[in-house]
């Protein structure tokens, strides 16, 4: 690096602290909401983004009023966002209290999609530059450098907020209830508290904090439509590194991460993207419950799986599957290239979703980063094909091996944790893989990706590739099904159902989970390898968090309680997304609404819906 004078170091440290305050504003709200309601609120970043956009609009309205106008707008934006949070809680999440714990998460994905399109409709796709904060526009001299006063103000906001929240939680009845609920949910019911009011007020507080964070960001950076996901991911990192349920932990980890980012730009510009997740990986590897976390805080996601008995396919289901396979196999006779391409893609997604279901449905390990193995499979196949000049068959075989190897490493780290911690560590691992695919240009081509991965010979045609994909998909899905009913599959489920019981019955829980992780990674790799050839190219987006979220949506939408669920979910979600994207401007909002509708109508997925319908239909016929 260039000259590192003391003032540059000091300025970077101060920048880091200012970022830390912003991070803490968002993370504290997320932490409080999770602590009390156990909702993993992916829409938290959307609340932040809304706060920024609302703040932008409001400050522009009252530009002439000077400082009172600016601060009034910031406050109003926070309060409006708080109200939006309450609405989301009352209209959607409240209805899902009895649903398995991952379904509220699915609903918040729906909210993210809707907010994205609402923001796009109201504020347009361009970045919006915010106003300066009246009264804080100047600079102070620090050694030989100038430092913005507004940043100094932000530095103070973090500790002030921490102090304020501390007083709120220690000195008020509301705070007492929040702490009680965070530590022990049953206790709140025992105290005779109106749970609904508590949840609503917690959502108000948490969302308002996110909105405040967004509005306070106006003088620092332009408002844009990508803020939501990037912020919520960072906030999750902060909360998990600090330890779930600990506000002090959240602040300490916000400072840690803010400062590391600031110095990372200075010293390690090549791996800035990875740095934060590397830190998170290291912290969780050493302290599985975060810096200030306690054992048992983040177990929520584990018990999320429904306790339904897996049954072999019924005769009817077998017939339906056979028919579907035959129908797809016959597509070359009646369908066009577009349809065949789409179906091939949906088949691949089905394998991806089924592999994630193996991990989270059977293994009880909810992963937020499963796309990493999909992407590594895709890169593995593409590199074998283009780089090593292997034939397509060999490249397709290379894909699951590459993914399984990555799964071996990632799984070793991840299975030592459970619940939200496991989910976030898997996300960290995936983000590291994503950043590598992005920044290791020599190997991966970086942003430009790897091109020209087209299938040769008979598979070059849409029909040829469809048949190949169909054959491999059927084989992969059958293999996963066989594994689910094997002794290993049962042991994996036993480890999920009752880990202590399993250990005392001779089941090596960690070993089973690790093996399950590797198998799931390998099958995601199969899907990724096929996808590379289906698209003729591989990009870093294949590993990105969006793809992992897609996988989660497919599994949950289809229904986590059955092996058929993820397949249905992949076809429903993938098909809907492709159709909407091609034909509707605001396709995200519609997709989000469909997800919400489905979650509310069928809180155990499409398969659950079908299941209850069949049971209901059968009931009158059965003798009493």
């Amino acid at each position, binding site marked *: 690096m260039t000259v590192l004078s003391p003032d540059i170091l000091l300025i970077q440290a101060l920048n880091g602290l200012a970022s830390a305050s912003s991070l803490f504003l968002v993370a504290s709200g997320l932490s409080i909401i999770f602590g009390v309601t156990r909702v993993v609120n992916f829409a938290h970043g959307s609340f932040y983004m809304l706060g920024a956009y609302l703040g932008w609009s409001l400050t522009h309205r009252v530009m002439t009023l000077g400082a009172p106008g600016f601060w009034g707008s910031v406050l109003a934006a926070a309060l409006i966002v708080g109200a939006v949070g309450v609405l989301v809680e009352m209209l959607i999440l409240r209805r899902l209290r009895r649903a398995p714990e991952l379904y509220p998460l699915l609903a918040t994905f729906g909210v993210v999609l809707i907010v994205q399109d609402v923001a796009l409709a109201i504020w347009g796709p361009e970045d919006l530059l915010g106003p300066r904060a009246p009264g804080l526009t100047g600079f102070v001299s620090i050694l030989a450098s100038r430092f913005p006063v507004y940043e100094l103000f932000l530095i103070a906001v973090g500790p002030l907020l921490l102090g304020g929240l501390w007083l709120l939680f220690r000195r008020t009845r509301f705070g007492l209830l929040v702490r009680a609920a965070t530590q022990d949910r049953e206790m709140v019911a025992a105290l005779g508290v109106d749970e609904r009011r508590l949840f609503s007020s917690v959502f108000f507080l948490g969302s308002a904090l996110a909105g405040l964070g967004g509005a306070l960001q106006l003088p620092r950076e332009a408002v844009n439509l990508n803020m939501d996901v990037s912020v919520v991911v960072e906030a999750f990192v902060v909360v998990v590194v600090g330890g779930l349920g600990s506000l002090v932990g959240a602040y300490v980890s916000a400072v840690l991460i803010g400062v590391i980012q600031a110095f990372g730009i200075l010293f390690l510009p090549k791996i800035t993207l990875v740095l934060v997740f590397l830190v998170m990986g290291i912290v969780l590897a050493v302290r599985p419950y975060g810096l200030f976390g306690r054992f048992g805080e983040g177990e929520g996601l584990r018990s999320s*799986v429904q*306790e*339904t*008995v*897996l049954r072999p396919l019924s005769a009817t289901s077998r017939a339906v599957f056979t028919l579907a396979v035959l129908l797809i196999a016959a597509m070359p006779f009646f369908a066009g290239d577009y349809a065949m391409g789409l179906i091939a893609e949906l088949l691949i997604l089905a394998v991806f979703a089924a592999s994630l279901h193996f991990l989270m449905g059977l293994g009880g390990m909810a992963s937020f980063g499963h796309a990493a193995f999909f992407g590594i499979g895709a890169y593995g196949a593409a590199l074998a094909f283009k780089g090593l000049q292997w034939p397509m068959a060999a490249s397709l075989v290379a894909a699951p091996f590459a993914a399984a190897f990555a799964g071996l490493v990632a799984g070793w780290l991840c299975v030592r944790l459970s619940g939200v911690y496991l989910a976030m560590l898997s996300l960290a691992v995936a983000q590291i893989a994503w950043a590598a695919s992005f920044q290791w240009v020599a190997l991966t081509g970086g942003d430009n990706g790897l091109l020209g991965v087209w299938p040769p010979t008979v598979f070059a045609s849409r029909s040829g590739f469809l048949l190949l994909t169909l054959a491999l998909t059927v084989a992969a899905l059958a293999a996963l099904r*066989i*594994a689910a*009913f*094997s*002794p*290993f*599959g*049962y*042991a994996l*489920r*036993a480890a*999920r*159902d*009752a880990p*202590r*019981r*399993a*250990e*005392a*019955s*001779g*089941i*090596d829980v960690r070993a*089973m989970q690790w*093996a399950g992780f590797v*198998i799931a990674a390998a099958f995601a790799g199969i899907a990724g390898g096929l996808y590379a050839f289906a698209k003729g190219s591989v990009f870093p987006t294949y590993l990105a968090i969006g793809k992992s979220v897609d996988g989660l949506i497919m599994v949950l939408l289809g229904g986590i309680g059955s092996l058929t669920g993820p397949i249905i979910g992949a076809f429903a979600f993938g098909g809907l997304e492709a159709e909407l994207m091609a034909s509707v401007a605001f396709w995200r909002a519609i997709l989000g609404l469909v997800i919400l509708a489905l979650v509310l109508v069928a809180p155990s997925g499409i398969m659950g819906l079908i299941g209850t319908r069949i049971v209901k239909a059968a009931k009158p016929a059965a003798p009493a």
Partner: protein
Amino acid sequence: MSAKVLEVEGLVKRFRGVNAVRGIDLSVHAGEAVALIGPNGAGKTTCFNMIGGQLKPDAGRVRLEGQDVTAMTPRLLWRRGVGRTFQITTAFASMTVRENVQLALNAKAGRLNRVFGRMTVAFGKEADAILARVGMSADAERPCAILAYGDLKRIELAIALAGAPKLLLMDEPTAGMAPGERVQLMALAASLAKRDGIAVLFTEHDMDVVFAHADRIIVLDRGSILAEGPPDKIKADSAVRAVYLGAGLASGVG
């Protein structure tokens, strides 16, 4: 007397200042049912967790058939013949009753690393035999998730039996059951102990159950052994009456 299966010496466990267990010696012989009783918080579960490998003792030794097994993992202890049920009952909720037992039998046979072939094709008969012994034959096909608490306790016992244990640790095996069911379950456990020569160590709050089925009783109070002996002697022990059983004893035994 038959061989000592379990031998515990000077077992100690502290939790952040709480002396949960302070130096306990006890032994259980093959075919013998020993009851560990004492008021809530006396340290019974902590004792069980140290013997079963769920907790590491701060001091003391645990020997199984003469071999030192102190602080071994639950899985290694299971391999050496320790079966247990938990105070807070758990079974594999996403499986049927028979599958629960079949899985335990598959584990015993070292078949869990197989990813091909149905788990349920192996040990069906053996599982049914065990279910018959715990009186759950009629429920073999039912999902565990919908079972009543008392039935879950029996499933847990069946899972433990599938491991062909030499030592059976049962922490409050009848808590939450109807009184009639309690006596029945403990009678079953005691008869198994006699028939198969299993050493049984159990904790229990219901004194009817304890006095009816324990060969020997160990009374724990605040982490230490207060008294030990056959049921008659414990009934008559004035220290036990005073500290633990209180005046309710006479009527309780009646």
